[in-house]
């Protein structure tokens, strides 16, 4: 499937950014899904998927040794699915979002596997590291980066190979109205974002008043715009 190659490359680069290099957050859903959508021919659909996934990813902190969803490759797949399944269909965004969340979960496990692999490689080269061998050190870094790049490409390709036909099948049989389908999805994404923000920031002094102030501004903008 040669049409998967650009998505594999995009997923590889964005998957690499999550932890290994350069952590510039091009792997955040709002960027990666938009890029995936653009590559599939509908940037707006990608952005919309990116916004929904970004709300859901708000609670994910890429903290050290913890295992967490890997949103980079997942968002490329989600954005590409949202664009290719046709964003005008009632079920497209929900299907793309579920595909992305499940891919993020698989991606998290693939990162865990990669870390174990890095550990095995490092253990094998430990005598050379203890001798201060520059080649051994650089070799481990380059091998780790290459493996992560490959991991990102594989996760993206597998996600698209699985979800393109499944998504097409689901969207074709979708029966709920557009407004309800979209409302449930957006409410769920918004709920995850609210709870994440609260957990992250409510400990700061007076933070509740800042939240109320922001809400007032947001509601005023909703009325006025």
């Amino acid at each position, binding site marked *: 499937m040669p049409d998967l190659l650009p998505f594999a490359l995009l997923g590889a680069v964005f998957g690499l950014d999550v932890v*290994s*290099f*350069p*952590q*510039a*957050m091009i792997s955040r859903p709002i*960027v990666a899904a938009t890029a995936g959508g653009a590559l599939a021919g509908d940037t707006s659909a990608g*952005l919309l998927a990116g*916004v929904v996934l*970004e*709300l859901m990813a708000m*609670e*994910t*902190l890429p903290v*050290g040794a913890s295992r967490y969803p890997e949103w980079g490759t997942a968002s490329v797949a989600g954005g590409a699915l949202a664009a290719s399944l*046709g964003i005008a269909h009632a079920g497209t965004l*929900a*299907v793309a*979002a*579920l595909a992305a*969340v499940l891919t993020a979960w698989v991606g998290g496990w693939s990162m865990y596997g990669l*870390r*174990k692999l*890095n*550990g095995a*490689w*490092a253990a094998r080269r430990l005598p050379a*590291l*203890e001798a*201060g061998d*520059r080649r051994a050190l650089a070799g481990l*870094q380059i091998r780790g*980066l290459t493996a992560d790049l490959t991991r990102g490409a594989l996760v993206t390709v597998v996600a698209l190979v699985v979800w393109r036909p499944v998504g097409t099948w689901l969207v074709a049989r979708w*029966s709920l109205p557009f407004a309800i*389908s*979209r409302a449930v*999805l*957006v*409410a*769920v*994404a*918004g*709920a*995850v974002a*609210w*709870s994440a*923000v609260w957990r992250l*920031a*409510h400990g*700061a*002094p*007076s*933070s509740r008043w*800042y*939240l109320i102030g922001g*809400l007032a*501004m*947001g509601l005023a*903008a909703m009325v006025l*715009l």
Partner: protein
Amino acid sequence: MTAPSIAPLPPAPPLSWRTWAAMFARLLAVQGAWNYELMLGTGIGFAAEPALRSLPGGPTGEAYHAALARQSRYFNAHPYLAAVAVGALARAELAGQPPAQIERLRTAMCGPLGSVGDRLVWAGWLPCCSLTALLAYGLGAGAVTVVALFLVLYNAGHIGLRAWGLRVGWRNGLRVAAVLANPVLRQGPQYIARAVMLLAGAAIPLAMRRALAGVHLASSLNVVPTPVGRTPVVTLLAAAVLGAALVWLHGRVEGWRGAALILAALIIFSVVR
């Protein structure tokens, strides 16, 4: 973190532009071989290596090999603030500090550089920039604006923090503990947390409203946006109630898992009914 008892350091010799650039570029890959045994260890050695070539005897000398071995052992910190450690450790090695003091510094830096970085960046700056981008989206910005705003804003902080860390680490060497008293590191997370709350209050409802409105059914598809009536209000309230439930269930249910379950149920219901 307590500063080890150390002799005063001479003024920091200037790092050549080439060495600084090489260390900075390698810092971007400091987690390239991250693993559960050494964590960032090999990345720290990899990033410090260009400076260590200036040790007596050069890259083939005994001092170089001993220093590189020391710097490639277990280390854990926030990846951006690892720059502080790389600068300080490279400076200490080049100043010929005793290995035991350098080892103590490595051990002492792990905890503070990890916890400060996590609070400042992952729990502060990242959601702050994310919410700014969502606010721009909610106010009607296009894809290029939203993405560019997020990347420029986030990376101004990201690149700035890494560059600052490498500079102050190199300048202070073994006395780098004082750097962690910097007001940005101590007070910054609290200020950013307030900004996160303010931005969240405005950005989440506005982004949700635009996502609901179907404005993305753009010209290319020739579809008129579906009228949503009272849907935004109902959706916002539902999100608030569900969000409160997730906060109440804190630690027992991760939001994304709950979201996956609800979406799966929605899809099954819509397909089989």
